[in-house]
C-alpha cells in the first residue's frame, strides 16, 4: 500500500516570467537546488529523478549540473501536463519499494519565450506513430491547438447542461482574484471582472482569451522521500496520502471525442476513484483543491468527476462562490495556472505543500488534506497530500 509511505519534503521554484533569459536546463537545476535546500538536503542525497516525457532536460543532465552522483531510479511520465502528479506517484513508488531514497521531481521550460504549446504545429500529424495517426483525424481540419481541442468539449458541456460562457468566466475571475494577492503570481495585483472576461477576444469559440491560461517560463521541483525520514528534515512533511494515474476507455490525447457524451473526463474519474479509495477520505475531508486549470471548462468538469458536486452542477457551485477562498472548496489559492504561472501543473503541487505547511500567500485555515490534479483532456494523475 502506497498511502502515507512517502512525503514531499521540499519544494523549490524559479521566478515565473515570460522570458527567463536562461536555458531550460539552468531553470531545472536552479529549481532542484532550491527544493533540496528547502528540504535541508544536498545533491549528494539524491538517487532518483522523475520528470515528464516533454521536458527538454534529461534526468542525467539535471543530475550532472547539480552535482548529483549515482541514480538508481529515473522515470519520465507520459502525457504532458497529465504527468504532473504522476511524477510524485512514481517517486513515491520508488521510495516505498526501496528503489530510491530521495527522488527529485522537476519540470522546467521556457514555454513562453521558447516553444509555445498553444501555437499550431503541423508536425503533430507528421509521424506514423500511434499519436501521429490519432492527430491525423484532427490536424488536417485545422483542429490543431489545445484551446480548440478543449473548446470542442466545452461546447458540448454548454449544450447539454445549458451553461454559459459566464460560467467558464467565473472560474477565470476567481483564479485571477486569488493570484492578485499572491506575490509570486504573474498576475499579482491584476484581478479581472466577469465583464472583462466576456469582452476578451475569441480564441476558439466558446473559449475567450481569458478562458485560456497564460504561458510562462519557469521551473518547479519537489523532493520526495520516505515519510519517516521527511519528519526528521527541515520542513514539515506533506504526506502522500494517495497518488494515482488514470486513463479511460477510448482515451486519446486531448481529442477523446469518440466515447461517452463528451461532458465528462472519464480519466479523471479513474484518478478520483483511486484517490478516495487509497486515502480513505471523501470530498468533504479536503480543505482545498488544486485543480489543473489550463482552460476554464475543465475546472467545472473536474469538480464533478472528483465528486465535489453532481453532474452539471459545477456552474451553480462556482456561481455560489464554491471555489473562492472563503467557499466550501477553495480551489487554487495561489491563482492556478490562469493566475500564478503555467508550469504544467507542477506549481500547483508546490502550493498544496505550502497550504499544508501553513505558509502560503493566501493561507487557508485548518488545512490537513489537499487534493491535487494534473492535466485534463489527456491521461492524467492526482494526489492527496496531508499534513503529518
Amino acid at each position: 500500500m502506497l498511502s502515507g509511505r512517502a512525503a514531499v519534503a521540499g519544494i523549490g521554484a524559479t521566478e515565473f516570467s515570460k522570458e527567463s533569459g536562461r536555458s531550460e536546463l539552468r531553470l531545472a537545476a536552479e529549481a532542484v537546488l532550491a527544493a533540496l535546500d528547502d528540504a535541508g538536503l544536498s545533491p549528494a542525497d539524491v538517487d532518483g529523478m522523475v520528470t515528464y516525457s516533454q521536458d527538454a532536460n534529461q534526468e542525467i543532465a539535471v543530475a550532472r549540473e547539480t552535482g548529483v552522483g549515482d541514480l538508481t531510479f529515473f522515470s519520465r511520465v507520459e502525457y504532458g501536463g497529465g504527468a504532473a502528479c504522476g511524477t510524485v506517484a512514481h517517486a513515491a513508488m520508488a521510495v516505498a519499494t526501496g528503489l530510491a531514497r530521495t527522488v527529485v521531481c522537476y519540470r522546467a521550460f521556457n514555454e513562453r519565450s521558447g516553444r509555445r504549446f498553444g501555437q499550431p504545429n503541423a508536425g503533430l500529424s507528421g509521424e506514423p506513430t500511434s499519436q501521429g495517426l490519432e492527430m491525423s483525424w484532427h490536424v488536417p481540419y485545422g483542429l490543431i491547438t489545445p484551446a480548440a481541442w478543449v473548446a470542442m468539449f466545452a461546447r458540448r458541456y454548454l449544450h447539454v447542461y445549458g451553461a454559459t460562457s459566464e460560467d467558464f468566466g467565473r472560474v477565470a475571475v476567481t483564479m485571477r482574484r486569488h493570484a492578485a494577492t499572491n506575490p509570486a503570481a504573474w498576475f499579482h495585483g491584476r484581478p479581472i471582472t466577469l465583464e472583462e472576461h466576456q469582452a476578451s477576444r475569441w480564441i476558439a469559440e466558446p473559449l475567450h482569451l481569458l478562458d485560456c491560461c497564460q504561458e510562462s517560463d519557469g521551473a518547479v521541483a519537489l523532493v520526495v522521500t520516505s515519510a519517516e525520514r521527511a519528519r526528521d528534515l527541515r520542513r514539515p512533511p506533506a504526506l502522500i496520502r494517495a497518488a494515482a494515474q488514470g486513463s479511460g476507455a477510448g482515451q486519446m490525447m486531448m481529442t477523446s471525442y469518440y466515447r461517452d457524451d463528451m461532458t465528462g473526463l472519464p480519466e479523471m474519474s479513474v484518478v478520483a476513484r483511486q484517490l478516495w479509495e487509497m486515502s480513505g477520505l471523501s470530498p468533504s475531508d479536503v480543505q482545498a483543491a488544486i485543480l489543473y486549470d489550463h482552460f476554464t471548462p475543465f475546472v467545472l468538469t473536474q469538480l464533478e468527476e472528483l465528486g465535489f458536486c453532481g453532474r452539471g452542477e459545477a456552474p451553480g457551485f462556482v456561481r455560489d462562490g464554491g471555489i473562492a477562498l472563503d467557499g466550501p472548496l477553495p480551489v487554487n489559492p495561489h491563482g492556478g495556472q490562469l493566475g500564478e504561472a503555467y508550469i504544467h501543473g507542477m506549481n500547483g503541487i508546490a502550493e498544496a505543500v505550502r497550504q499544508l505547511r501553513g505558509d502560503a500567500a493566501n493561507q487557508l485555515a485548518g488545512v490537513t488534506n489537499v487534493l491535487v490534479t494534473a492535466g485534463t483532456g489527456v491521461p492524467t494523475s492526482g494526489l492527496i497530500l496531508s499534513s503529518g
Partner: protein
Amino acid sequence: MTGTPTGTPTGTPTGTPTDTLHELAAKQAALGEVRGAPGPDPVNAPMIRHWLTAMGDANPLYLEQGLAPPAMAQVWTMDAPRDRSPVDDVLAALDAAGYTGVVATDCRQTYHRYARLGERLTPATRFTDLAGPKRTALGVGFFATWNVTWYDADDRPVTEMLFRVLKFRPPEVAQPYPLQPVVNQDTAFFWEGAKRGELRIQRCGDCGALRHPPGPMCPACRSTARTHAVATGRGTLYSYVVHHHPPVPGRETPFVVGVVELPEGVRIVGNVVDCPVEEVEVGMPLRVTFRPMDDRLVLPLWTPEEA
C-alpha cells in the same frame, strides 16, 4: 464544387471588379488618338542593316534605295521617351486585378509607304477595346486591343498597326496543403475512399462492428480481419468550435470544426463549410462533401443538409 486550401467556404473575389476595368477601358478609348514623342533617331542604315541580318533578309534593295523594311515600324520609336499612352493605365489596372500574365495574340500592320533614311516618325496610340473576362487555356483573362499609327513630318501615316494582348490570371501554383495526415496501412483505406468521394467507415471482418477512427484490431472481438462500409454521408453536428486564433497554416480564420455523429453509429471530425458561422449549431443536419486540398489530399467536410 472545387476545393480551396484556404478553408474559406465561399471565396470572395480579390481583384478589381470587371465593371471597373470596363469603365476604365471606355474612358481610355474616349481619349481617342494620343500622340507620343517622335523617335529619338531618324531612320538609319545601321539599324536597317542589323535588322536585315537578324531577320536573314538578303534583299539588297532596302539599303541600295535607302528604304526601311516596313515591318520595322515599331523599331524607330521603341526607345522614344514616351508620354503615357492610353494603353498603360488599362494594363496597369489589369495587373493590379491579378491579370498579370500577358501574351500577344494579334499584330496586324498596314503599310502606306516605305519609311526613308533620315526621316523621323512619330507614333500615336488609340485604345480601342477591352473584352472579357474570358476563359482561355492560359487562364481567365481580358483581351486588350489598341492601334498605333506612325506619322511622318507632314502628319501623313506611314504605318498602322492593330495590336492585341491577352492579359490573364496565371493559375495559382498549387501549394501543398500544410496540414497533411500521416497515413499507414491501418488508415489508407479511409483517405483513398475520400479521393473517390466515399466516406469509409472501418467494419470488422468478423463481428461486423463499425469503428471510427479505424485501427488494426477490432476492440470488440480482437479480430484483425478488416473491411469497410461506405457511409450514407448524412450526419448530425454533435459539437463544434469556431477557430479564431492563433492563425493556422493553410486556413483562413474563422473556420468551424465539428464532431459529426453519423447514423451508422460513429463520430467523425470535419469542417462545417458553406454555412455562416453564426448559423452553425449543435444538432444541425449535415451532408458530407469532398474537397481537394491539394493534388494529394481530399478531405471529407460537411455542409448543411438543406444546402
